[in-house]
């Protein structure tokens, strides 16, 4: 790896790396601060709601908590800002602003230089809108695709495949010593949210009397997700007619998590097969899992075995899936030569 920070940051400038995700957004700043919020923005529905929540705008978990009083936006749901949705664009803008204020030191704060990682599909479709959204709060900025930021952060610059399993999308990106082009990237829509939906349906079928909601389902998934064989049973408490009751959800969790595997394996094989045959082996031996979905137990082993049928395969998991993208973006910001930071 190259040594950190080739250029010294001028005073009164704050470098930040932002990972704008479909479910969570994170920021890492070079003052050492790291923060994340759920990617929700909510505006009070009317003046009464405004009075109840006490703020003109709410973010993240706080917004989720008060969702009944708010017009809620999850601006990058499905990985893109839908065209013509002014409110979604505004929500992106506010979300970024909020993230920046979380890491800034004081009110008269430093000028911001940002590198923003966004879902691959969004990078393709919305990069102009995204750039505009950040422009207001930053002196200078770069927009990059999220899996690329992750790859840069872990130093996987050549002959590597990053699989970033998020909530709305799974993004694939092959690195070969350059900024990945469109054909080096792929997006599928069966990701974390899809697992939630599946788990919800399976549990509804098996325990029709149990009373649960999507939030609980998400929690079960985050705590217990696995694929392949599990030694222990997964047991959770779900109320039945108001009484907390233990339910065994091992099979359902397994089935739900495994429902995203076919699309991942297929896309991985497809992307590698399209690549220059001389380098295919090298890429297969350097697969990196990122994003919240990389935490599914047994996933790396499963992929190693399945893709291993096509040749030796190694799958690694990034150390910090929550901040992997933001840290990578910050790394890019740190190493960006001074003269590339042009004022907007």
């Amino acid at each position: 790896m190259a040594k950190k920070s080739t250029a010294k940051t001028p005073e009164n400038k704050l470098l930040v790396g932002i990972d704008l995700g479909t479910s969570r957004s994170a920021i890492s700043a070079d003052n050492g601060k790291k923060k994340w919020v759920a990617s929700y923005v909510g505006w009070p529905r009317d003046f009464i709601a405004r009075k109840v929540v006490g703020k003109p705008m709410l973010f993240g978990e706080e917004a989720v908590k008060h969702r009944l009083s708010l017009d809620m936006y999850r601006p990058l749901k499905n990985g893109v800002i839908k065209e013509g949705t002014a409110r979604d664009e505004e929500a992106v803008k506010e979300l970024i602003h909020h993230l920046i204020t979380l890491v800034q030191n004081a009110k008269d704060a430093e000028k911001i230089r940002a590198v923003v990682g966004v879902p691959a599909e969004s990078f393709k479709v919305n990069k102009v809108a995204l750039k505009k959204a950040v422009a207001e709060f930053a002196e200078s900025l770069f927009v990059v695709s999220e899996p690329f930021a992750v790859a840069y952060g872990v130093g996987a610059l050549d002959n590597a495949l990053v699989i970033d399993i998020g909530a709305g999308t799974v993004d694939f990106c092959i690195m070969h010593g350059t900024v990945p082009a469109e054909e080096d990237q792929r997006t599928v829509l069966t990701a974390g949210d899809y697992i939630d939906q599946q788990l919800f349906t399976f549990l509804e079928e098996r325990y029709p009397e149990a009373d649960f909601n999507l939030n609980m389902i998400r929690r079960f998934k985050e705590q217990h997700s696995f694929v392949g064989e599990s030694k222990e049973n997964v047991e959770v408490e779900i109320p039945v007619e108001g009484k907390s009751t233990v339910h065994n959800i091992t099979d359902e969790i397994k089935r739900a998590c495994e429902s995203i595997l076919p699309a991942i394996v297929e896309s991985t094989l497809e992307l590698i097969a399209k690549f220059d045959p001389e380098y295919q082996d090298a890429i297969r031996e350097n697969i990196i899992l990122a994003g919240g979905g990389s935490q599914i137990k047994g996933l790396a082993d499963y992929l190693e075995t399945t893709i291993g049928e096509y040749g030796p395969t190694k799958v690694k998991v990034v150390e910090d899936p929550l901040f992997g993208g933001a840290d990578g973006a910050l790394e890019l910001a740190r190493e960006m030569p001074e003269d590339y930071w042009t004022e907007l």
Partner: protein
Amino acid sequence: MHNGDSTKIKASILREVYEDNLRIADPHLQPIHNRYRQGIKKLSRPVPLLFVFFACLLFYFIANTGQQQGPGAVDAVTIQPVFPWAEIIYKQQRLQSPASTVSFDAGRLLNYDLLLNHNNIRLSAIFGLGVQTIVIDPGHGGKDPGAIGSNGTKEKDIVLDIALQLRDRLQKTGRYKVLLTRDTDTFISLADRVKFANEHHADLFVSLHINALPQKEFNVTETYYFGPPSDLHTLRLAEQENRGSEIMTGDFKDMIKKIGNVLKEQESETLASTIQHNLFSNMEKYDRVIADNGIKIAPFVVLLGVNAPSVLVEISCISKREEETNLNNPEYRQRIMASLQKGITGYLSQRQTQVVKGENNGKKIHRKNT
């Protein structure tokens, strides 16, 4: 990776990020020298022959239309960023003569009228509109049972079951987001169905219905897309399905204006025909005398109001006793679902081969004020 190598790669990557971002601000900027190298590298990779063939064909077509161009059509269009294939060809040109300018004057190449009126060229293919959200609309529901068979089988239950299965099947591919206008036995007005599809930015809308005919011995499969009614039977059917639409005449007139939407009509027609073809080949296996009424045009409110390409499928006729019995068989319904899925994915893959996905959903076609 050696340290030296890594530093070199990083320097070149950072430069590319810089240049890429400059281009976001100004898409007319010339690509950098690195891109040339990348271009060469990519061209040396095996490119599917079919892709190149289509690209050349389309390029040839557009180039030829330029000769027929009269003054005052489109002033100047930057084509380069829209089509990846154009980029490849353009890269080749750049490699041969690095001094030529990036955006070439496409006013000479593109004839807008021709684009809109030429039947062989599909707009969605040109602008690279990829599909993401499919809305499936099981007809009727709740207090509105739809058509009822002589044994009491209700249209609303059959179409709901097929729609639920269809959603799961399509979703498993991981390629589309699939939404249902209703996933339970509830009444939803036609206006709300339209609103639902538009609010969720549907890219494709498929409404499922089952017909009932006064002539109980007949069984018919047909698929509709929006337009003025082609015959009396269609008008009657449209009246039947439009009932309870809760849409005012004024709104209806506004909606009628949308008929001019060439793109939607072209796409709806193609979608209708692939679905009809697949569905009929399936139904024929069970009912040898089932009639293939093909694709038809009808003024169904749901089809008009939805912004996306939309079709309405009348799967079969519950009024025929044997058909009603069949529809009560889960396996039979599964076959119907599979043929609908085949129709939808068939249409999408057909589009995929034609769609060379454009950056920014084709937004990068710029008009220049010359």
